[in-house]
């Protein structure tokens, strides 16, 4: 079967399950809002420093929400032993992986739909197209890596513990470039164009690498 159709079928299945149960997105949305709250008290935010602190809090909230979202994508399949059933079909493991990554990306984007306006509300930072574009661009590469490592830790014990340990170091380039892009989009110094270019490069690099590696991770 056409791998694109397999990927879409897998993504649709995951999103439909999430839509029916509404397990993950509401919890994550609440989590990111709480993260903003903690950030506010942790940093003594006032009108002068809000724009300097907001981008950092944005990325912190996003990174930890992402870890939870991506961790769930394979944990749920493992709990239900359904991953093996999928892998027992002729569908290519890379297509299955791509489908799971697509669904996880959509879930994280849904979190961002809550996170970005909430940031504007609590910190008074501008919610511009540039900010949204930077966050979305970073989400793509982070999702590819996050879902790959979620598949990896699904194979080992203590997976909740291991996922952040393995994923966070690999996300650093996205946080550096994404952080820079958001900062300059919010009016702090730095080149927005250059940061976006870097994000795009990282996206391409890691999407290609993860699709090459997916086969080895998912195969028995």
């Amino acid at each position, binding site marked *: 079967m056409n791998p694109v159709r397999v990927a879409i079928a897998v993504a649709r299945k995951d999103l439909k399950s999430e839509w029916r149960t509404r397990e993950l997105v509401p919890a994550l949305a609440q989590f990111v809002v709480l993260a903003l709250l903690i950030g506010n008290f942790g940093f003594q935010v006032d009108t002068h420093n809000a724009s300097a602190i907001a981008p950092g809090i944005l990325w912190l909230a996003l990174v930890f929400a992402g870890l939870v979202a991506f961790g769930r994508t394979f944990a749920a399949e493992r709990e239900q032993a359904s991953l093996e059933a999928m892998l027992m079909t002729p569908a290519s493991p890379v297509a299955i992986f791509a489908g799971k990554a697509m669904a996880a990306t959509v879930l994280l984007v849904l979190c961002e739909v809550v996170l970005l306006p909430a940031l504007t509300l609590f910190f008074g930072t501008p919610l511009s197209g540039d900010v949204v574009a930077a966050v979305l661009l970073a989400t793509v590469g982070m999702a590819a890596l996050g879902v790959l490592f979620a598949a990896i830790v699904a194979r080992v014990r203590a997976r909740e513990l*291991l996922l952040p*340990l393995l994923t966070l170091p*690999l996300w650093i*380039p996205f946080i550096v470039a994404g952080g820079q892009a958001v900062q300059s989009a919010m009016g702090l110094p730095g080149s927005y164009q250059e940061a976006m270019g870097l994000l795009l490069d990282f996206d391409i690099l890691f999407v290609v690498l993860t699709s090459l590696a997916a086969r080895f991770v998912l195969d028995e």
Partner: protein
Amino acid sequence: MSRHERWAAGAVALMLVAGAAIFLYAPTDYLQGPVQRIFYLHVSSAIAAYGCFTVVLIGGLVYLRRESLVADRFARAGAVVGVVFTTVTLVMGMLWAKPIWGTYWTWDARLTSTLVLWMIYAGYLLVRRLADPGRQAARIAAVVGIFGFVDVPVVHFSVTWWRTQHPGPVVVNDALPPEMLATFLLTMACTLALAAVLIAIRYRIETLSDERMHMAEEVKVITAPEPRMAP
């Protein structure tokens, strides 16, 4: 004395020679004073660490291609030894930085990427410990090792792009006086020999533990007498 014990004794002797060169032969740096002597082992162990992680990378790639148990054992050995050398590099770097920069730590590109390197391969070792030994563990560890290797230059590059204040590579632009250069090259050679011996010993340990896990010789590619078309 077994073969490995002889190698270990040799490596210790070499490191003592390097130590003698560092403290007795090399001149004292007139700007930094005796602290500068950290440089020889600091840079040497960084290079040894990169060498070890290259072993992990190549071992992982070969494993994914051929499922060779030998390659996987080299990768495991390289990761352990590499983490040790990265730790040495980081600790010595911090000891040097305190008197010279006035702080143990600063977020420049090389420091950050070395720390990330340490984190990734410490994670690699955790994966090896937490996954049930077997083909799957070897495969996912290979993937972690390969991603780690790719990530480090990317982190380095992105932080450089961000900002940097680490002293430039002093060796390449021959700013070192000849005695210092000779000491450095000697220390580097001895450290690399030490790393090789440690990998060899670790390889032996991994072989023995594989044998206890009954993975040793039985893992062969399974072949059918003659493939036929499905009727």
